[in-house]
């Protein structure tokens, strides 16, 4: 009996277990990427840059995770958790790259500790060594506050990662390639919710107006040029944040236009002796966040997970 007898055997592949419900063909976007440092790129600078990008993602992920069990709808809860997990994945890859570029940044742990370098950087680093912008560490407010913050952050990060795909460091380019696909969805999600809240009821409009006004003082800090970044831009490894402002402005103006809201006029938040998040100067909100995030790992520095 040959296969032509049944029209159905080609459709039903009974030998494999690749039922659609369990997902098929997982692949690692960073498989096969050359991890050696390209020449001309200083390891210490690259590590600092990786920390900047990674800490933005790590702290954002922690704030998004705080919506678990609190989100307004079940589907929003899964959506926010997914966004947080995407960012956590980017943070992990970037922290690992930073540790590979300059192992001296990794906090020292007791002998025999099985903690990998990226975990040590996430859970055993003190606050002055975090390089995230102050936008991501602000405490969560209501849902509108998180949506406004996610809109600003994902627009900024997407603009940066789109350009980072051409980095001379192959791992950064690969992480950027993966990140662009994730951030496209994050930005879309935030923009849709922004417009929905603005055009919904009087209550939701009041809240989204208040949210974007409270977020706005921390926007300018995202685009301040940074010496570490400038040095890496000169060797083609990084993206100059100040060049992202025009794309950011055009996207945010589109969203505000669709929402019928004016551009916020709040002044930028003050710097501390000319320094802010990228230099390790943070708001007190970060210290509470890190205390909660790091307490379990710090209690068991030799623990296996």
């Amino acid at each position, binding site marked *: 009996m040959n296969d*032509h007898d049944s029209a159905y055997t080609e459709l039903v592949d009974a030998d494999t277990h690749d039922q659609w419900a369990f997902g*098929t063909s997982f692949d690692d976007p960073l498989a096969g990427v050359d991890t050696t440092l390209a020449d001309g790129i200083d390891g210490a600078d690259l590590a600092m840059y990786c920390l900047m990008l990674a800490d933005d993602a790590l702290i954002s992920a922690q704030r998004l995770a705080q919506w678990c069990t609190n989100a307004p709808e079940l*589907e929003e809860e899964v959506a926010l958790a997914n966004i947080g997990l995407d960012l956590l994945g980017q943070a992990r890859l970037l922290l690992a790259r930073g540790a590979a570029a300059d192992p001296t940044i990794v906090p020292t742990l007791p002998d025999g500790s099985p903690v990998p370098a990226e975990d040590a950087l996430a859970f055993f680093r003190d606050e002055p060594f975090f390089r995230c912008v102050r936008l991501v560490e602000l405490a969560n407010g209501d849902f509108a506050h998180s949506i406004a913050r996610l809109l600003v952050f994902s627009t900024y990060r997407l603009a940066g990662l789109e350009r980072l795909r051409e980095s001379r460091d192959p791992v950064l380019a690969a992480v950027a390639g993966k990140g662009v696909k994730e951030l496209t969805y994050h930005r879309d999600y935030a923009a849709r919710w922004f417009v*929905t809240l603005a055009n919904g009821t009087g209550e939701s409009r009041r809240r989204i107006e208040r949210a974007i006004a409270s977020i706005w003082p921390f926007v300018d800090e995202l685009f301040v040029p940074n010496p570490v970044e400038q040095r890496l831009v000169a060797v083609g490894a990084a993206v100059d944040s100040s060049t992202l402002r025009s794309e950011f402005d055009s996207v945010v103006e589109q969203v505000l236009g669709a929402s019928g809201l004016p551009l916020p006029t709040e002044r930028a938040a003050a710097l501390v002796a000319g320094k802010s998040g990228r230099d390790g100067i943070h708001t007190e909100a970060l210290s509470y966040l890190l205390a909660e995030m790091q307490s379990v790992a710090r209690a068991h520095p030799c623990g296996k997970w």
Partner: protein
Amino acid sequence: MIHFDTDPGDGLGAVPAADTTIDSVDTATACDGAAPITPEWPLYEVFVRGKRGLNHVHVGSLHAADSRMALRHARDVYTRRNEGISVWVVRSVDIVASSPAEKDPFFAPSGDKVYRHPTFYAIPDNVPHM
């Protein structure tokens, strides 16, 4: 008239307070300016097509305010494990289903008609493709 609690303790404000009175229950979306606002999002059924499949398969249901949001929710909830490459969402009220009471008249008569199945017939050897 919808009344919202102006200072809800939960800090969310996305859902009206418990003592809301509604003019009429309608499944129209809240984003449509002319439609009345309801406290419940309508239900949607979600269908996902796997990479190796030809057809969309029903995977579950979810709530959303309108069909574009339903598509985003389906992407968030039903594609987490790399399940597929295409998603359909349909409002549950648009699905017309057979009822269990009609099971016998609907499905039993085909049970003994084996000649309707293509493998019932022997293909002659000199017919190459069938």
